[in-house]
């Protein structure tokens, strides 16, 4: 064994749990219904992770379709021709049979669609994406545990997530919401349009799911590490997930009370956020961003964890600056709580704005520490340029652009010009999509063989990755230009000078769609006809590669005993070793 000694039980094992082979966690039950029931009532973190993964990917598809509708509408500016509205033909689907004589209807549909895109992407896709799917699956495996600390609670958070998403879908089908995903008051508290209360409740419920998952992970990391695994023997994905979990636990309750007060405001008119009743709408923004800014790091930190692990394995080199990366995760988590004010530069005093601007720059430091360490890891590494690695490189490229374009937004003088323009839209898409989603894709390809026991088609994966990369840049890089030229965000129409850039952006979004469809096809093909995956296709040294592909129900036949660090490639892997040549069973390994 490379990393661990699984041949004898780890001593303090309590004497129960896997003796003999259990079979893969994916093994179906006696009948179809029994299998469904088994999955619906499972407390196995792997099954729950897979269920999250498919739910998240489905909602990602839904939100993607909504984004494409937005982009399609923006192909041409809205204008009147012979007293009829032209440029919003797509939206006539939403009010069939009626002829559009004013832009109001189309604009309302536009507002609804971008709100739903944002709300679904933030609350239902990006926040739970990596922690709840890959985190759930791999956190216990990576620390050599049989499950998360509270398996039933884990199942409960899954059901809360489903209920929250159903509330969201109900809100969409019952009229939708047009407040934007931030639900700013007093518009959100006073508007009669649509189902704001339902959507806000959905976000509230999803918050509970997030809290419970985070709580579970913190306790898991503290209490369930395998014998021999100290804090600094943990893979960096575990560190990142741990930092994420702390933010989830500490930030989410604040959005909970905020959304609850917003619901009370709408139902009982308590007026806390309504200036007409003596309330303060800026207080809503403070509350909202006190959660929603840290949550930006809930979105990106697990992605950074994936990058650290995939990058080290695929370039077969000890990660450069292990502790620097681990502590920068915690540093980002800490700073994340101090920067919320940069969303309200115009509604705070001068001194507060300067302070928040300065604190915002601080985030760049731990982030840059990570990026430099990743690039240093690549230096003289044995880089395997496959789909996960390609996505890592895409991440580094896109995330650096996303991070650096954050700086002019943190600088007050430039922010005055760029605020609420497409520059902001491009910036956060580079971070959220170019960061988190690209990291998710890297992790998904890297761990796909482990999760489902089958290899994916490497050529297909590469083609998909290249299409996504090209499509993404064509879509969003143009938006930096649009923003600096003054195109405001959230507008259904624009002056004709912007049309060329908007059209390039729209073409890019369809290339992006094509890329993801290629990935979908590759994944389906892999599940149906993929080659059987070996235990350790990439030569990783972390514990999940010791488990079977796919892992058995209890993860490991015996509790693993950690003998070497997660990235000790130099001491455990022979030079020029290729995973295809022979399995890595014989490489001797000693801790440090």
């Amino acid at each position: 064994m490379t990393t661990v000694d699984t041949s004898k039980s780890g001593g303090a094992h309590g004497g129960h749990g896997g003796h003999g082979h259990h079979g893969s966690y994916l093994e179906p039950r006696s009948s179809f219904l029994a299998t469904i029931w088994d999955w619906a009532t499972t407390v196995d973190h792997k099954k729950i992770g897979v269920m999250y993964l498919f739910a998240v990917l489905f909602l990602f598809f839904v939100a993607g379709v909504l984004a494409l509708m937005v982009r399609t509408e923006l192909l041409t500016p809205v204008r009147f021709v012979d007293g009829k509205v032209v440029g919003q033909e797509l939206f006539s689907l939403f009010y069939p049979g009626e002829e559009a004589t004013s832009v109001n209807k189309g604009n309302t549909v536009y507002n609804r669609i971008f709100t739903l895109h944002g709300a679904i992407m933030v609350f239902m896709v990006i926040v739970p994406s990596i922690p709840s799917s890959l985190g759930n699956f791999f956190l216990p495996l990576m620390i050599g545990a049989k499950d998360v600390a509270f398996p039933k609670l884990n199942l409960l958070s899954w059901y809360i997530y489903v209920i929250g998403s159903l509330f969201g879908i109900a809100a969409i089908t019952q009229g939708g919401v047009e407040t934007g995903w931030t639900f700013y008051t007093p518009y959100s508290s006073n508007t009669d349009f649509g189902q704001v209360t339902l959507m806000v409740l959905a976000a509230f419920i999803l918050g509970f799911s997030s809290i419970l998952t985070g709580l579970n992970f913190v306790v898991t990391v503290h209490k369930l590490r395998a014998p021999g695994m100290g804090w600094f023997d943990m893979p960096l994905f575990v560190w990142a997930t741990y930092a994420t979990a702390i933010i989830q636990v500490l930030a989410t309750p604040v959005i909970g009370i905020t959304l609850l007060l917003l619901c009370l405001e709408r139902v009982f008119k308590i007026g806390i956020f309504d200036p007409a009743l003596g309330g303060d709408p800026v207080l809503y923004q403070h509350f909202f961003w006190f959660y929603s800014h840290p949550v930006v790091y809930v979105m990106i930190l697990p992605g950074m964890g994936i990058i650290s692990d995939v990058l080290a394995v695929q370039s077969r080199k000890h990660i450069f600056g292990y502790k620097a990366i681990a502590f920068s995760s915690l540093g980002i988590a800490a700073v994340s709580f101090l920067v919320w004010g940069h969303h309200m530069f115009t509604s705070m005093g001068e001194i507060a704005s300067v302070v928040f601007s300065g604190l915002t720059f601080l985030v760049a430091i731990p982030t840059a520490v990570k990026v430099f360490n990743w690039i240093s890891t690549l230096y003289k590494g044995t880089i395997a340029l496959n789909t996960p690695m390609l996505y890592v490189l895409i991440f580094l490229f896109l995330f650096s652009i996303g991070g650096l374009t954050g700086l002019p937004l943190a600088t007050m003088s430039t922010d005055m010009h760029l605020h609420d323009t497409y520059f902001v839209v491009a910036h956060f898409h580079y971070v959220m999509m170019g960061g988190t989603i690209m990291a998710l894709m890297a992790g998904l390809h890297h761990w796909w063989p482990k999760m489902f026991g089958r290899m994916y088609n490497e050529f297909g994966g590469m083609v998909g990755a290249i299409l996504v990369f090209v499509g993404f840049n064509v879509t969003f890089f143009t938006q930096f230009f649009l923003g600096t030229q003054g195109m405001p965000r959230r507008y259904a129409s624009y002056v004709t000078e912007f049309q060329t850039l908007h059209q390039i952006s729209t073409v890019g979004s369809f290339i992006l769609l094509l890329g993801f469809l290629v990935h979908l096809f590759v994944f389906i093909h892999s599940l149906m006809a993929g080659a059987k995956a070996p235990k350790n296709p990439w030569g990783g040294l972390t514990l999940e590669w010791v488990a079977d592909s796919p892992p058995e129900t209890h993860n490991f036949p015996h509790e693993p005993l950690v003998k070497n660090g997660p990235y000790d490639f130099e001491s455990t892997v022979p030079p020029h070793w290729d995973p295809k040549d022979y399995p890595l069973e014989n490489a001797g390994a000693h801790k440090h």
Partner: protein
Amino acid sequence: MSTVNSTHEHQSSGGGVPYKKYKHAHHWRSQSEEFDAVKLGFWLFLATEVLLFGGIFCAYAIFRMMHPEAWKEGSSALDWRWGGLNTVVLLLSSYTMAASIFAVQTGQFARAKRNLLITLFCGCLFVAIKMTFEYIPKWSGFFFILDPSLATYKAAAVEGKTAFMGLFQYVEGYGGKRPGELFTHPFAKDPNVPMWWSVYYSGTALHALHVIIGMILIARVYIKLGKGHYGPTYYSGVEIAGLYWHLVDLIWIFLFPLLYLIH
């Protein structure tokens, strides 16, 4: 273990077994590790509860700063004696809760059950006092006839009174102290008094909801204790119900002076 679905068998976490036979869930090395983890998890959960109420306290502080006159007027409408009585009730219940945990740890089950019952009774009393003597009169102007302050208010009432359901009496001009737009109290001096009531009702109602959830937890512990599920070697359920109850108490300890005592 040769059974395929052993996951489920190991997951009972003491669901239907006497405490002596309690076996920790399959993914823990020992029962004490499991207990430590449960406690750590629950403390984290309590942190989220504190942050949840943090929003209310923050709103209190900001609006107090924005509308000090409204805060003065609003808080003077609260009777510190009812708040004080409820504080005593909750403190007593916290003591009996702690005593019942100690009793379970030392195997004195009758004593534990007695203390749990007193805790439950105090919880009910808290909610009853809150509803009968505070929420109902302020919201609607209907006073419970045994309310000692009724005589005072009747004397000061604008116009007569009407009996209601035998147990309640209506005092004209007293009610209508409601949050936000629902505010109809005719004698408010400061236009922002409805804000005060918004914060008052949000805070105390959210707290009362936590009291009720705490009572449900304690009732569950009481029933499981009756079935012999807890004892000196296994009592995590009792302990976390206790932790939750102390949190409920703690939040009231902050709400009480902020709402009732300072003007």
